[in-house]
């Protein structure tokens, strides 16, 4: 709403820096004289129906923050000295072109890595630049085991040939009122407290909407959260043991005959072998592993299996389990054997809306964009492909733990440059953060594209390019639904969007680059949806896939809407859901789910556990911050000013620490500062702390780097990953530590 006739209102879609999330809500931008004066949720957007999170609502403070980088910069002092000088875009592009070409000429394109952070629209432009340059090494650098969604995607792909998501009616513009939709009777919320954000393309409060409409909750969470305290069953799990729990629940459902026999007979493959495997996981054994009372495991499994429809919604802890891909496989088996597949209120198959590719999620999509020849060629040199067949076969990511090891060692081939785009690696995702710092310092040439200076840009950048928020750019999104566009309504300084920057660079680095500008690229990619960028803008920025389209539920496997040959069934080798996974078999991964203990813990490392008896959980989502962002936004920071650690009252007493005291979290890798918050939210043998802390108000130049070495918790999280597929097993939720007082 507006009080002023000269204010223009632009509805747009969100999926970029600004709010920072993975979501696609609709927001209305209020612009006066070229300036953003306000933002409000768009009531016409079915995603959020007018609602907004605090990060979206604080957009004006983000966009016009005095610390925004608004012009390209070049480093003039020594690396890390914090001395930069403004340059023009032409100078910046020229320098990048010259340096990147000379590295390619001398060492080959594979010697430059293209590093991104969390999953938002940057995935499209950065993979585009990487492929046009000719490098196979597109990577979420620092994210040990690629432990964010990729393992879950891999587990689902290997089982169903497709990805699935809990059905909250999001595929229909009518949402909960769609006559075809049914609210899940039971929702297992596995490893997430959904309200804080829209992770993995899912509005967290959709679960809350379903609860209001009658859904019962089974919460699997080591902590007491808003969600867990409203659940029918709260399974307070030991971190890193989700695989055992899933196998135990499968054991109950199979041995008690609670699965959907007709569905299993008709649509699955390998059930008998799964049945045999789960016998190794009787509930008494699973109870011992997971610390969950046996009766709760049994009762929760029954509640889920006896109610239809029932859905599973899950979070990033699944990926951070040892063998994260396999854990995801086991959990997906729960919805597969209960017939909760592509049914209203179950787990529906999720494909990019209208078949449009923005950010390629699978090898098939990469082949669609860049051709089989290039993809085959790049697969040969990609870091991790020789070690992990799944790294080669599934997604096109280089293996992050191996990338940093190779940057450090220079073998089997040297890495000379990095293009780091909206990814604060050192202040954010990097496990072994100090090692990343030391290794990345060895590079000859580093470009950082970002909106604010941060520990990564300060420590490493030779060239800094100023990026744009979602309000300042044309871009597009098809992460499940809706098909949405962002369109540029304001300009801040000389900032450019990730797409604009990367298309310009791609043209300079590849004379055969297919597109000259972003509109051309978007319209070409949108052509499969028979719609244009302008048409989408004019209809409020979003569209839902039409009925009968392969990206719209329900029951597509019956209708022959999934397979290329138009036959009923799934896009797997056998055409069935492969409970015994042929894809895993071909990737040298056990075709059936199994459980492996976390690398550190009471079972695997009893001596270490004696020395460091607290299991440290990191990485829970915050309402205020998206990963390492937003610490400089006043309306947000004031609501969570300091990095705290949640400590159970008994634990606090044992260590003699008081509420509000600054202490260290410590293990053999080092120590990190935290402020104690005594809380019943945590189990006495665990602590929980937020990740990705640095303080933009502190000095940026070395050695301070905005306090990153005081506050970056990932300094004491080990690598490499703990997973035989190469995906999953980042130790962000299972590392051991103790509390120590600062003045002792």
């Amino acid at each position, binding site marked *: 709403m507006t009080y002023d006739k000269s204010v223009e209102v632009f509805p747009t879609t969100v999926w970029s820096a600004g709010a920072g999330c993975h979501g696609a809500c609709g927001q209305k931008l209020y612009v006066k004289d070229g300036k953003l004066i306000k933002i409000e949720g768009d009531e016409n957007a079915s995603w959020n129906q007018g609602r907004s999170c*605090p990060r979206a609502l604080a957009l004006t403070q983000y966009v016009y923050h005095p610390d925004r980088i608004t012009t390209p910069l070049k480093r003039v002092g020594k690396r890390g000295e914090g001395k930069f000088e403004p340059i023009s875009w032409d100078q910046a592009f020229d320098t990048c072109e010259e340096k990147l070409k000379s590295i390619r000429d001398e060492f080959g394109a594979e010697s430059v890595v293209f590093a991104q952070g969390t999953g938002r629209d940057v995935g499209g432009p950065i993979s585009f630049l990487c492929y046009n340059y000719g490098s196979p090494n597109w990577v979420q650098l620092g994210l040990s085991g690629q432990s964010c969604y990729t393992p879950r995607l891999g587990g689902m792909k290997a089982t169903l040939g497709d990805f699935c998501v809990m059905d909250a009616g999001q595929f229909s513009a009518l949402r909960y009122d769609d006559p075809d939709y049914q609210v899940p009777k039971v929702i297992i919320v596995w490893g997430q407290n959904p309200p804080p954000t829209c992770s993995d393309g899912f509005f967290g409060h959709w679960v*809350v909407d379903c609860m209001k409409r009658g859904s019962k909750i089974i919460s699997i969470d080591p902590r*007491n959260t808003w969600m867990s305290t409203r659940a029918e069953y709260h399974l307070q799990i030991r971190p890193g043991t989700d695989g055992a729990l899933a196998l135990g629940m499968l054991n109950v459902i199979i041995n008690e005959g609670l699965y959907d026999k007709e569905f299993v007979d008709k649509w699955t493959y390998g059930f008998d072998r799964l049945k045999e495997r789960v016998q190794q996981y009787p509930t008494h054994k699973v109870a011992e592993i997971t610390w969950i009372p046996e009766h709760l495991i049994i009762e929760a499994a029954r509640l889920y299996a006896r109610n239809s429809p029932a859905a599973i919604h899950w979070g990033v802890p699944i990926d951070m389990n040892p063998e994260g891909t396999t854990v995801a496989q086991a959990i997906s088996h729960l919805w597969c054997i209960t017939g909760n597949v592509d049914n209203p209120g179950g787990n529906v198959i999720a494909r990019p809306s209208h078949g449009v590719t923005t950010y390629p999620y699978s090898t098939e999509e990469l082949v669609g964009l860049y051709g089989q020849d290039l993809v085959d060629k790049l697969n040969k040199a990609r870091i991790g492909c020789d070690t992990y067949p799944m790294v080669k076969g599934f997604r096109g990511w280089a293996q992050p733990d191996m990338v940093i090891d190779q940057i450090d060692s220079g073998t089997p081939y040297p890495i000379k440059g990095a293009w780091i785009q909206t990814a604060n690696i050192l202040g954010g995702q990097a496990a072994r953060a100090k090692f990343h710092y030391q290794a990345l310092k060895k590079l000859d040439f580093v470009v950082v594209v970002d909106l604010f200076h941060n520990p990564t840009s300060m420590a490493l950048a030779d060239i800094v390019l100023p990026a744009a928020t979602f309000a300042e750019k044309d871009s597009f999104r098809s992460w499940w639904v809706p098909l949405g566009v962002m369109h540029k309504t304001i300009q801040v300084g000389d900032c450019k969007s990730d797409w604009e920057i990367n298309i310009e660079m791609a043209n300079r680095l590849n004379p055969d680059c297919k597109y000259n500008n972003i509109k051309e690229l978007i319209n070409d990619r949108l052509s499969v949806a028979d719609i244009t960028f302008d048409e989408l803008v004019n209809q409020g920025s979003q569209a839902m896939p039409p009925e009968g389209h392969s990206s719209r539920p329900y029951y597509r496997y019956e209708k022959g809407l999934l397979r290329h040959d138009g036959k009923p069934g799934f896009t797997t080798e056998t055409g069935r859901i492969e409970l015994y996974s042929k894809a895993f078999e071909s990737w040298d991964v056990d075709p059936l789910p199994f459980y492996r203990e976390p690398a550190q813990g009471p079972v695997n490392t009893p001596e270490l556990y004696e020395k460091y008896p607290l299991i440290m959980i990191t990485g829970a989502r915050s309402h205020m911050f998206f990963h390492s962002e937003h610490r400089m936004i006043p*309306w947000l920071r004031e609501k969570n000013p300091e990095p705290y650690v949640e400590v159970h009252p008994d634990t606090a007493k044992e260590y003699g620490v008081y509420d509000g005291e600054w202490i260290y979290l410590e293990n053999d890798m080092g120590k990190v500062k935290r402020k104690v918050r005594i809380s019943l939210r945590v189990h006495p043998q665990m602590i929980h702390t937020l990740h990705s802390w640095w303080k933009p108000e502190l000095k940026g130049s070395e050695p301070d780097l905005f306090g990153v070495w005081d506050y970056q918790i990932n300094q004491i999280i080990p690598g490499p990953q703990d997973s035989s597929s190469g995906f999953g097993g980042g130790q962000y939720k299972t590392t051991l530590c103790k509390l120590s007082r600062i003045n002792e």
Partner: protein
Amino acid sequence: MAKMGLFINYDYCTGCQSCAVACQQEHDFPAGKCGITVTEYVYPAEKKPVAVDFLPFPNELCDLCIRRHQMGEDPACVKHCQAACMMFGPLEQLVKEMEKTPRSALFSPR
């Protein structure tokens, strides 16, 4: 005009703070100033070992978004509340809401 107020079904309040930032944006309040503050309560409860609740408190700075009301719009907090657990209306009507809603609160800020 009937006396107006804010009804909060706090059983569903997730503590997301959208109400607070919406209020700050609407009134152009700097950090440190806000018409509604959200408090967390974590305590041992009767039927479960721990309860986690949140309660937003519309304080003296809350003007019930009178300007928005005059233009036929809901208050900024009510509109943006992610759990859709807030209502604005005549107190008389909101009391009826409260009668059928356990774990709810009613505020008459002015």
